[in-house]
């Protein structure tokens, strides 16, 4: 292999030897930045995280959520597609018989170990019922004990807190209003009321 030699021309002369022109050029740059940021920090792009949060894309894969039908039941039919496709084997489902015969099955247990999850989104793609999504808007999961990372079905289920849906695109589209939910739930033995 031939070594390539890069010739760097050395700038000599009185102007360079004086240092002062170069120093003033540099000072002009730094003082410009200084004055622009002195009042109002105009060029600063830092986001002060806990106080202000960046806008996240609607496609951001955050914590999972289990969507509901219009009557408030979980959309999930416990078909095991997501558990099968999951590369990190973090989903655990146990199916039960649903009282509504047209639905047939529902998940009695639906656990996701968020510590094992690699947030690849394959479960979302695999789901035939659009029952699991990763658009909860929760982007940071930080707890002090391992057990808290084990999200059970009821934790994963959609809440009705509008603040939990930072994602406007999907917000409450497939959710019943709270009054409807209250009307729907007492007849159900399968999905406990939240």
């Amino acid at each position: 292999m031939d070594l390539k030699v890069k010739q760097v021309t050395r700038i000599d002369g009185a102007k360079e030897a004086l240092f002062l022109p170069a120093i003033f050029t540099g000072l002009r740059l730094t003082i410009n930045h200084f004055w622009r940021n002195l009042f109002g920090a105009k060029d600063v792009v830092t986001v002060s995280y806990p106080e202000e949060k960046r806008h996240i894309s609607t496609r951001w894969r955050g914590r999972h959520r289990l969507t509901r039908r219009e009557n408030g039941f979980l959309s999930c039919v416990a078909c095991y597609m997501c558990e099968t496709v999951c590369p990190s084997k973090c989903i655990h489902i146990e199916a039960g018989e649903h009282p509504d015969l047209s639905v047939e099955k529902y998940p009695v247990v639906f656990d996701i170990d968020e510590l094992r999850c690699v947030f690849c989104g394959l479960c979302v793609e695999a789901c035939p019922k659009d029952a699991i999504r990763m658009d909860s808007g929760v982007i940071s999961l930080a707890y002090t004990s391992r057990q808290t990372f084990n999200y059970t079905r009821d934790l994963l289920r959609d809440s009705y807190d509008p603040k939990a849906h930072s994602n406007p695109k999907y917000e409450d589209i497939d959710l019943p209003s709270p009054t409807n939910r209250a009307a729907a739930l007492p007849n159900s033995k399968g999905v406990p009321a939240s």
Partner: protein
Amino acid sequence: MDILLEIIMIPAVLALIKIVVIILLFALPLGTLLTLMERKWSAMIQDRVGPNRANIGSFTGHGLLHLAADGLKSIFKEDCIPRGANKFLYLLAPFFGMISAVAIFSIIPIAGPIGDFTFQVADVEPGLLFIFAITSLSVYGAVLAGYSSNSKFALLGGTRASAQMISYEVFMGLALMGVFMVYGTTRVSGIVDGQNEYWFGNLIPMWGVFTQPLGFILFFTALVAETKRPPFDAPEGESELVAGYFLEYSGMRWSAFMLAEYIAIVGVSVLMTTLFFGGYHVPWLHLWESAPQWLVTILQIIKFSIVTIFFCWFQIQLRWTVPKFRFDQTMSLGWKKLLPLSLLNLFVTAFVILAFA
């Protein structure tokens, strides 16, 4: 009450009060503030936010509480002495840095005299020669710290400090020689009063920066090297010597070195103000003859502080602008360029004074 007044008027007591006021109300607060301001200003230069997290409840004061946080942290940190260190010298070294930084303020007048009362701790005849003697002592802090730490990095830093000191100290004195010649005295009050004269009627004040422009640049360069800050930070050499001569220090002793560095910045600014920017004299104020004395004094203190703060800011701006000089570059800059330049400045000044005065 009378007894109290009499005690205060004893020269020694008066000098003590002046020392306390000038150092506790001027030098130390400015130096301490600069430790925060350096971080804040550098953040602005580099489009960052800077320190803003220290808080009491929801009060952060734009990072001001970091001063308290830093102080508390250094007080409660363990004061380590490395194995094999020369304990006596190791404990002594921070004081040298601190004392030489603080001593500059002893001969600087921060306002004009009112009658017999001077806003100056001591107006000694040698004046600036005293400053040279004191500032040269600051290198002992670095050398002793490096020598006694029993650490190779620290020793290298101390060696570099002494070698750098040799290369700037010579032209530092020569650069100021022009100022002595122009104003005809080494006494600080004499130099300050000399700058109250005007050229072309009342057009241009005879400030040192106008009478000695080259001397101004040379002396400022020398003083920046004196504070061991970038671009002349070879003794600290963050990139190759970690922290240089005070590498092994921790806790409050480390803070003493850092604080000494920032007080030295204030000291440099004060010197530049006094020698090259008219000291406390407010330009063209003598035209307003009916000005009350108290107002004049307040204006003088304000002018002095503004110019001083400007130079503090300028040094920090310089530190975040100019890349570091390699060690041999510092030496060759000092010996081959600035020393001949300061000699040239001396000859030209002498010639001009001979020809026109």
